């Protein structure tokens, strides 16, 4: 299976809306599912700052995220 690419925006609007918690959640997923995801940060994804926090999973953009929502999206891909 291919490694899932998770890119989390850490631009200021996303940071203010909880990007740090998204990263922490993905770090947990990283340790639970070793070698299944590749975590990266981005300075801005697609200029959709009013929908912060934003992440890109395998080239698809997800807006208005919470740690739980992102976990669900990533876990669905892993299974």
């Amino acid at each position, binding site marked *: 299976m291919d490694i899932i690419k998770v890119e989390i925006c*850490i631009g200021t609007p996303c940071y203010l809306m909880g990007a740090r918690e998204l990263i922490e959640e993905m770090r947990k997923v990283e340790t639970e599912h070793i070698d299944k995801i590749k975590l990266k940060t981005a*300075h801005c994804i697609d200029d959709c700052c009013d929908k912060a926090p934003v992440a890109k999973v395998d080239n698809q953009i997800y807006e208005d995220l919470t740690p739980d929502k992102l976990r669900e999206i990533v876990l669905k891909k892993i299974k």
Partner: protein
Amino acid sequence: MAANPVSEVVKIKRKIYIELARQVLENTIEDKLKKIPYKILKEKDERYRCCIHKERAIIKERIKLALGFDPQLHKEETPSDLLQKRGEEDCCNNIINVIELACDSCPIDKYTVTDSCRNCVAHKCVNVCPVDAIVTIQNKAFIDQKKCIECGRCKEVCPYGAIHENIRPCVRACSVDALSSNSDRKAVIDYDKCVGCGSCIKACPFGAISDSTELVTVCRSLKKDNDDKLSALLAPSFVGQFGAKISPGKIKSALLEIGFDEVIEVGLGADMTSLEERDELIEKLNKDEFLLSSCCPSFKKLVINEYKDLIKNISNTFSPMVKAAQKVKKASDNKTVFIGPCIAKKSEATLFNSVDYVLTFEELLCIIVAADMNLASYDQQKELNDASKHGRQFAYSGGLCQVMQSITNFDLETVKGNGLDECLDLLNKKAEQEIDFDFMEGMACSGGCAGGPAVLNKPQVTKKLVELFADKAEYVKAEQNEFTA
């Protein structure tokens, strides 16, 4: 210790601040203010209350508070009415306010029996109850709330832990018993007891308690067409609050770019405070007395409210915020904006003419977002070097004790109160003469200022980053810092 989590309540508050700041900076607030509830809450958005109309009505109440008006005293007026009134009348007397419409009126039955009750043979709860409030109904213990005196003995004796103690989050969070509820079960703050620490704001999951802000006023002064000159005073705990790898030099440069005239470390004020406080301490020790720190306004208020006999021991030295602001005022006519992790500083500032405005890190970051600035891709730097290592150490619990030990040349016995509960414990023991010390550092927030209600990073991470920044200071000791003169 975790950072303050970015809950939905926190997100809504931040979205309102960003919108308000943007409208002020873009000169559109007169027309667009009334649209904010509709912009923030779209029809399809998730809802937590009965209907979208109530949610939007609550956003309006939050806007009133953000404009500096107590929503309870201005129920009839809209945010737009209040915008016109700004400047005409004095805004909120209290910094921390209950937004009644948002308060869920949490249940106040203190003890209830849960499904874990087995209706056991021993029924210790029934036996222990001093007012016969517990009876068995349908194979389960039942507490008659009219009789219950909330003593808690039933909870203590139940072998199944089946009796639940129900405390509102705001009441639980308050270390000084300043929170209660009125006849409508809405939260009420007793301002004679409140020390302004902001714990209740963090604790309420409905966001029903919030602080007023000077964000709109500061944004007006920051606008390009405004002649006001502002000095930003960055509290020692600012390091690492604005995102990963956003260095102090970057923050300084960014603040100058969004319209501040100068940026100064409050650590410089901390240097000045520590030197004066040391002299005061020596004076006290010569009289066989001890000294309580004064830089945390909530701690100071706690002593004033609850320990009348210890008031004479509070340091009279002004806090780092005030010292730094006075320094600015001596050199220029600039308006001073203290930027920190703290809500209590908002109250403290009203007592001093030298501090014009107080913003939190959270509020400042909302302004930065409204100004369309992305610090993650920002690459400018400006040197920031106002404070010594000592001054920078004020950011975390224990820092002030370290500084005092290091700048006195004798054996100093210090204690630190890390958080209000620890402060209360130490002050109780001192009042009862159970402990002995020369100097007490009191911080209302756990972790010190790095654990304040408006921080955006974890206290332990902030402490590490502050220590690294402190090690880079040009001077180790406060007295070496030539800027303190």
